[in-house]
């Protein structure tokens, strides 16, 4: 999960390295820090450093972190032999290491040897029962084999112990959404908002789920969370602005014949619509007529 500013910085650096402008190590460090998945680039640029003895020795102790990063990227790109070489180098340097043991487990996964991987992970867990990475590998394996209900069960058990792991809550929420289990997904986002109330992504995702669930109460709640997203993002988050309009239209539909909404709320979607039009005028002029027509078709209450 990366904000727009960080993504722009990462892309700039990536372009620079791709075009021979140097900065490969900075790029690889940033990828690690932001925890993004850019395996082809990491493999390409990481290997070029590792295969150059001068550059490799400049890294000092960090050389081994790079071996690990490249091994994982290689597995993601199905270059199993390259991964194996990296892991062998790490094994020679750190013979009894649990971290290397994990990589060996992942290599078995990459080869599709699920049973062997499970055996490897179980034996590592015997000595280190609270290793979070291995527990999550098991979830990943279940998912990769198409055993989604197994993955859900595993992930729920994991979260009972490690309830502060935001990434795990997000993964669980996304799995629930893919299965259209929206109530369960909502619960996950509620946990995330409780832990980290100032992260706009969670407010936005929660609002999306509530809107999808539907019903007057959920729509009203959804509108509140689109509003808080706008608040937390300085007012320009396109999805949240559209969300306000969608909620207002749906609420108006459902409230036909009931009491009218308060004035505050009707100002909100009018403001949202105006902001969208202003944004499209500035940055997407060709789509402005489509936007205007869309807002008109939504039948927003005035």
């Amino acid at each position, binding site marked *: 999960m990366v904000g727009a500013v960080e993504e722009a910085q990462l892309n700039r650096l990536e372009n620079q390295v791709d075009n021979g402008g140097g900065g490969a190590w900075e790029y690889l460090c940033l990828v690690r820090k932001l925890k993004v998945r850019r395996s082809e680039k990491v493999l390409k640029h990481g290997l070029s450093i590792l295969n150059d003895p001068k550059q490799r020795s400049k890294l000092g102790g960090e050389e081994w972190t790079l071996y690990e990063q490249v091994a994982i990227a290689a597995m993601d790109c199905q270059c199993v032999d390259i991964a194996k070489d990296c892991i062998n180098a790490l094994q020679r340097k750190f013979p009894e290491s649990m971290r290397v043991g994990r990589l060996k487990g992942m290599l078995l996964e990459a080869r599709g040897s699920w049973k062997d991987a499970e055996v490897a992970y179980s034996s590592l867990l015997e000595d280190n029962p609270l290793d979070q990475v291995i527990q999550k590998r098991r979830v990943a394996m279940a998912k990769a084999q198409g055993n989604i209900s197994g993955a859900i069960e595993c992930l729920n058990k994991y979260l009972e112990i490690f309830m502060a792991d935001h990434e795990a809550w997000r993964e669980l929420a996304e799995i629930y959404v*893919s299965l259209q289990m929206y109530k369960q997904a909502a619960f996950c986002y509620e946990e995330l908002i409780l832990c980290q109330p100032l992260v706009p992504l969670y407010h936005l*995702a929660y609002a999306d789920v509530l809107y999808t669930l539907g019903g007057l109460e959920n729509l009203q709640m959804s509108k509140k969370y689109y509003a808080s997203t706008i608040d937390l993002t300085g007012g320009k988050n*396109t999805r949240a602005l559209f969300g306000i309009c*969608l909620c207002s239209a749906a609420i108006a539909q459902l409230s036909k014949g009931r009491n009218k909404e308060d004035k505050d709320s009707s100002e909100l979607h009018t403001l949202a619509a105006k902001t969208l039009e202003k944004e499209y005028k500035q940055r*997407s002029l060709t*789509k402005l007529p489509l936007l205007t027509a*869309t807002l008109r078709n*939504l039948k927003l209450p005035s």
Partner: protein
Amino acid sequence: MGGELRYEIGQNAYIKLVLHALKHKTSATNGVLLGRLVDEDLVQISDSVPLSHSQIGLLPALEIALLQIEEHFGAQGLSIVGYYHANERYDDFDLGSAARNIGDHIHRYFPQAAVLLLDNRKLETLSEGKDRSPVVQLYTRDATRSWKQTGSDGNSRLTIKEPSANIVLLDYILSEKWKGIVDFDDHLDDIGKDWLNPDLFK
């Protein structure tokens, strides 16, 4: 009723959906198909719009996208005639519930709607260069109101308009053309990006 309903997909519509899936290899992707009904027994699919590569199954982005797409293509006399989907995993050949639900929604407005599911096995063997048939599975709604795969008896109801489409597709894959494709998700993240992909095939 006479013969079975056939579907003919134009090269650009077809290539776009495959490139979309290739750009987002680690997630499911989806999009809509645009076209028209011709002669009662032929649906011509002339274009496609890539929608999403994350959180498929949530309504807000989908609703906004459909409104804008209908508005734009309606002016050209085209309607939404189908939906495409590519699963997250390589060996997943099922049409999931979210895909079926979106298909149902489209079917309400266009009863001859088709759902296309990317066939990863066929896509993989594309480079052998022998097959001219599209690398997708066609699903239509049968009398029981559920989506069933058709054409598995060897009698395919889906053809690509241009016979050399797979060769062009292969060329685009080799030149990594999928990097330039924009979907509605990308547009919502940055409205400067155009989901119509006007320059993709230039």
